[in-house]
């Protein structure tokens, strides 16, 4: 069977710097999103559990010139092949268009028996793309999986909801999004990283998928995107543990937030 893991290649968010209140996004390195690493690991564990499958890492890049390099990370971690939809028209798109491109790309590259997503991307965390894709492909979907089992043409998922743990089952093909508690993604070995460069990577444009640039037009407008204002004192209290601890408690008492 064919497992497609949908991967978002993100800015390394730990590197985002705020200038004034504006985020500075130029020259940031990209990486495979953390939750997508969980999804890749989940696919790998299914295979290691005896499921015969091809693992495809699929990304729709927002005109990211470095996307092929970034996808090598997914290939090194788990995937047998990668599919990259990369198109300048995707530079300022949103989840609906991403989902449309993902759905088309899956249809275009051999379909999927199981489509895996992270529960959200580490940057926007909208959590929309998985269910949009499921709707577009007419698939049953189970979100927030903390364990996945595949047997007898069905996927059984234990999922982590706000107030309960649910066990759900859906017939394949199906879409599943995963939460980070599902596994601890392993670190790729050097040889796997090396071999990743030689695995097949298919690059597609929107036109290849029968989509025009209009399909990438965003449905939303971002009116502003600024860091919250913070005005902090930044006082480091020096000294050994006892001195510093005493100094901190004294300071907090003086602030009126302790010892009232």
């Amino acid at each position, binding site marked *: 069977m064919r497992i497609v893991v949908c991967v978002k290649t993100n800015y390394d968010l730990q590197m985002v710097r705020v*200038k004034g209140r504006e985020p500075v996004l130029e*020259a940031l*390195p990209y990486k495979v999103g953390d939750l997508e690493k969980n999804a890749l690991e989940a696919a790998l564990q299914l295979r290691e559990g005896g499921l015969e499958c091809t693992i495809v890492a699929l990304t729709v890049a927002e005109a990211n010139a470095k996307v092929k390099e970034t996808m090598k990370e997914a290939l090194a971690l788990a995937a047998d092949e990668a599919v990259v939809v990369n198109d300048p028209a995707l530079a300022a798109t949103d989840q609906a268009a991403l989902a449309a491109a993902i759905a088309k790309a899956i249809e275009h590259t051999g379909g999927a028996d199981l489509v895996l997503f992270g529960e959200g991307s580490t940057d926007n965390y909208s959590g929309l793309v998985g269910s949009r894709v499921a709707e577009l492909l007419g698939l049953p979907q189970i979100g927030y999986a903390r364990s996945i089992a595949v047997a007898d043409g069905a996927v059984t998922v234990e999922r982590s909801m706000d107030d309960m743990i649910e066990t759900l089952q859906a017939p394949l093909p199906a879409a599943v999004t995963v939460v980070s508690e599902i596994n601890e993604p392993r670190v790729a070995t*050097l040889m796997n990283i*090396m071999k990743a460069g030689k695995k097949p990577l298919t690059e597609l444009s929107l036109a290849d998928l029968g989509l025009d640039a209009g399909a990438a037009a965003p449905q939303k407008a971002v009116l502003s995107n600024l860091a919250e204002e913070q005005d902090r004192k930044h006082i480091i209290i020096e000294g050994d543990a006892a001195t510093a601890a005493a100094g901190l408690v004294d300071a907090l008492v003086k602030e009126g937030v302790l010892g009232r």
Partner: protein
Amino acid sequence: MEKVDVIVVGGGLAGLSAAYGLAQAGLEVMVLERGDYPGAKNVTGGRLYTSVVRDLYPELWEGAPFERAVTREAISMLADGRMATFEIAAEEFGGRRPQSFTVVRAKLDQYLAERTGEAGGMVIPKMKVDALLTEGGSEASGAGGGPGASGADGGPGASGRVIGIRAGEDEIGADVVVVAEGVLGLLSSEAGLRERPAAADTALGYKEVIELPASVIEDRWHLNPGEGAAQLFMGSVTKGMMGGAFLYTNRESISLGIVVGMEQLRSRPDELESWQLLDELKTSPAVAPLIKGGEVIEYSAHAVAEGGIAKVPRLLGDGYVMVGDAAGLSLNALITVRGMDFAIASGYHAAQAIAAAKAAGDTSAAGLAGYERALRESFVLKDLQTAAKVPALLENQRLFTHYPEAVTKLMADIFTIGPGPTEKLSKTGFGGVRRSFLNLATAKDALSFRKI
């Protein structure tokens, strides 16, 4: 043990230049970089003399993310609250083929890493190499070693053939390991390929990147758009210690840093740190207006090799070559500070030699000997040889105390109108010159300076 053709330890300019050439030659090459990404924590001040590397990989430099072509050079001497600046703006520095550019390493190194990736090389960041593996199962562990472990007894060259690396759980073999680990040389010294750099041959660099709008930079340093300035500071900025401060204008930031002799800094009783020296420079009346309104967006500290050619280790051996700072290929000639050009050139020549050695099926020291030959024929070792006496000169304390004091005093005297009668300019000038520059010590200095 799985194996690739070449492993490059360190993804700086030397390592990436080697990897790019090797990938182009069709070899399977893996670059292991400790930082979050190539160039992430590099403290290099930021000027690359492109004049000497332009013909190596000419296709690379056309689209390279350079900051500004340096058209203004200045040296400022500081002493006793005075700053005397000598500045040259020369059209020949710029033009169609500028001799040097300011660079931001985070951008330049990532650019080279991308080109290397496109050429088929694999650049792997966040990957710390723990040891170089040598033949006979001897492994010099970076973690468990330490002084007196392997290498220290035998001295450089005592180890067997370098056969690969260990990084965490992974052991990977290679026909050739390119050692591009930078100035500290931890892995290569543990493996007995070189000695650890001595504190006396090492300086400590501390640099801040201060963000300023392009127009402000161009106004403050009198630059046309795209042009840049380089400024060196010496004298009281290092409190008499060997070293100086540097300033380079980038597109929308300046790199301001200080380099101080490690040994002199360490032996101070007041536990002064290099960043404190830089802070004093930043708040000094002469420099504060230059950086006013700028925000420090990054800072970093690192060692700088100052040993000159005398401290260049054996450049290659069975299964390995040393490039860039790891091979001590840097030159502080007081007025020109070079390292990046040497790094690129050494990486280039290493790649050519390794490709040839691989083709000939001999990656022993003999097979790789072309690397050292090429370096000797190139500007790298020639310029280092020319400057062979410089490191000793830099130990002359007067460079950092007496001369800045004398020059600034003389300049100040010339421009001083005191309350009493003013001397003839010629008297002030010649008097100052005679007092400060014509004595036995300076005469000896003058003789030694001729060796530069």
